[in-house]
């Protein structure tokens, strides 16, 4: 089959050159070789519009309202502003679909998704968008429903779009990484699937994201990119295999070990013995992962594993980028009750934010506005020195509740 109309694309053609795989060649293949006439035409028109963008350095999509029956979000509507010139792609909506934690697929499942998508869509997709969804890019209003109905029957559901709980993401984690300190799969599904209603029916102040990394390497970028970051960690001693360590010293040399391991520990918790063994000051190790990353055979995470939870990470809009900050320094995440308690904390946070956040204000921005202490009191979490880099530097604060607060601290210590 072939497209009814082919547009000249001299600028895009340049992007077919060079050794990296070309998305333009891929779109042209759909235009020229796919057996579905809709795909030929829509991708041809898309190329025409994209070339027009390249020439004028402007975008030509506008939003709108499209959703599937029963849901309020999950579709990114796209209508062309230049549909007169490029009519076949006048509607080019994207469906956001939630992948599994860690983004696992069988080839059979990917083929099945491709089969469905080429019946109803443009044949273009991305694994995955920055929020973590599978993005099926480009179809008509009518076909968003038919495509969704088909894949929903075999296990796929839409993700979030708009002011709602968004699709969550996890690192590869325990499935294939020795650094993992938690079951990222369970954490992600417990959290996000508890809020399915909030994913599909946007009614929050703004977006809310869960991300999970199995260890402080944070391959999932959870601290910076999610409102609720769950990071695996451990609280007993790290594992040391002295024999393997000596092997590293022998092959790499003492100088390398000193320069790249011992002196790079942020809290000076490591020492190299005269006998070429390593000593770890576990009380002062901040679980940064560096030494373990350098010598994964000799060093490893401990046994008493759990998670740290940080709240309020986000990107630029509106007050500037924010990292999440520690709200739960450590909690176990093994039993059903542990997961339930974490979900309750998430509910508590989302409820408080839904009530107190301004329109279009992320959770972290609300915390910035009201102060961490008011937030903690609102969600019923006690203060902890792990929540700060340093204590207060300004004396301009009213402290007449000091004695009561000090008593509370000692009571909590006595209970622990």
């Amino acid at each position, binding site marked *: 089959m072939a497209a009814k109309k082919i547009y000249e694309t001299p600028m895009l053609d340049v992007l077919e050159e060079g050794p990296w*795989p070309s998305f333009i060649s891929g779109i042209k293949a759909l235009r020229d070789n796919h057996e579905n006439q809709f795909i030929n035409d829509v991708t041809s028109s898309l190329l025409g519009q994209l070339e027009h963008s390249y020439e004028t350095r402007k975008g030509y*999509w506008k939003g709108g309202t499209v959703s599937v*029956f029963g849901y309020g979000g999950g579709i990114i509507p796209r209508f062309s502003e230049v549909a007169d010139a490029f009519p076949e792609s006048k509607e080019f909506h994207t469906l956001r679909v939630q992948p599994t934690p860690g983004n696992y697929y069988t080839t059979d499942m990917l083929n099945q998704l491709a089969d469905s998508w080429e019946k109803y869509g443009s044949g273009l997709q991305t694994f995955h968008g920055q929020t973590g969804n599978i993005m099926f890019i480009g179809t008509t209003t009518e076909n968003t429903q038919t495509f969704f109905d088909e894949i929903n029957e075999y296990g796929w559901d839409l993700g979030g779009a708009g002011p709602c709980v968004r699709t969550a993401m996890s690192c590869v984690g325990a499935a294939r990484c020795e650094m993992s300190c938690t079951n990222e799969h369970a954490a992600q599904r417990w959290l996000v699937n508890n809020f399915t209603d909030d994913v599909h029916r946007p009614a929050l102040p703004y977006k809310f994201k869960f991300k999970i990394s199995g260890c402080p390497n944070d391959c999932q970028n959870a601290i910076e990119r999610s409102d609720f970051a769950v990071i695996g960690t451990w609280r007993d001693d790290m594992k040391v295999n002295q024999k393997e360590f000596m092997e590293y010293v022998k092959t790499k040399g003492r100088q390398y070990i000193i320069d790249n391991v011992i002196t790079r520990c942020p809290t000076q918790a490591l020492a190299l013995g005269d006998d070429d063994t390593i000593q770890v000051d576990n009380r002062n190790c901040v679980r940064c992962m560096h030494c373990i*990353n350098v010598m994964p055979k000799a060093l490893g995470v401990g046994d008493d594993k759990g998670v740290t939870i940080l709240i309020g990470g986000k990107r630029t809009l509106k007050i500037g980028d924010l990292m999440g900050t520690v709200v739960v320094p450590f909690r176990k995440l093994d039993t059903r009750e542990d997961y339930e308690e974490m979900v309750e904390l998430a509910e508590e946070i989302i409820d408080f934010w839904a009530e107190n956040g301004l329109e279009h204000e992320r959770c972290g921005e609300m915390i910035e506005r009201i102060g961490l202490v008011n937030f903690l009191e609102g969600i019923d979490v006690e203060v902890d020195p792990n929540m700060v880099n340093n204590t207060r530097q300004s004396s301009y604060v009213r402290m007449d509740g000091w004695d009561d607060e000090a008593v509370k601290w000692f009571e909590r210590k006595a209970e622990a």
Partner: protein
Amino acid sequence: MAMADMRPPIESGCPDGFQYMHPTMRRNFGLWKYHTDPRPGVLCHVAKSGEKIFTVKAGTQRILDVFTLRKLTKIGDEYADGFIRFTIRSNIEFYVTEEAKVEPLIKALEDEGFVVGGTKNSVTTLSHTQGWLHCDIPGTDASGVVKSMMDELIDEFKNWNMPNRVHMTTSCCQINCGGQGDIAINVQHTKPPKIDHTQVANVCERPSVVARCPVAAIRPAMVDGQPSLEVDEKKCICCGACFPPCPPMMINDAEHSKLAVWIGGNHSNARGKPTFQKLVASGIPNNPPRWPEAGAIVKQILKCYKEDARDWERVGEWVERIGWPRFFELTGLPFTKYHIDNWRGARASLNASTHIRF
């Protein structure tokens, strides 16, 4: 169709990943012992049980057409064990348990034009956003920028030449949904929005647009007898935040929407705490289809980093050690008044010491 005929959705949410996971990974879930890096693009993980799994990682065009997707699944069936995963940077990973299958798998991928690499201390694929292809607010095309950069950086993807891993990102508006990167290439608008006064009353909810501005530069106003908005151009920081809720606030400009390069964003807690990226260059022309000016700056920074940084130093850690004056000296980039922050918390970024390198 009448409402009653519509099919109600099955609200299944996030699906179970174990059903799609390689059996070796399922069996050894949480029981891995260590890994080695046999060659660029390949990982070998060893479980406590003694079982092994090899991961072969490849870069693709990210915007995948179904033909390319089927090429990948076919390779996955013929040369790997039929199980696949995508990384956060849209690289694809194949899994095999037999070492003998690794080289044929790599060859099959390379024969089809995919690029094997992106592990350890390499430049991995730029993570990117949507751009002109299908977003409604972009100032540039993320896919085109990434294709152009990766054509130039392909050897750095395929080899372990860098002091540590380099994560790059692009964003096609100042919302920056691309996230933090060791090097980030982002749109930077330089002029306030031009307002299409004929449209504001029709399409915008004025109070919410006013509320969206980070510096309170927008006011409701009557223009030509119609309700519209006006912008205090002295206050406006050209961020573009008013544009998504109100398309008549036309921020994108063929000439004045530029690119800026930021460095030192790092998500990991390894050694130092996670860091945000910092501005190094701006005023770079938004120059499709190849963005050569942006590419040249990125390559210059990478060259200096490669030559001067110590093993395991990420880009931001390197600059922290050598200091900003040396960074500008090494890279030849200009230091301007725009590098000095004036946003909230800016004082913390000033040097309040005599720590100066000579």
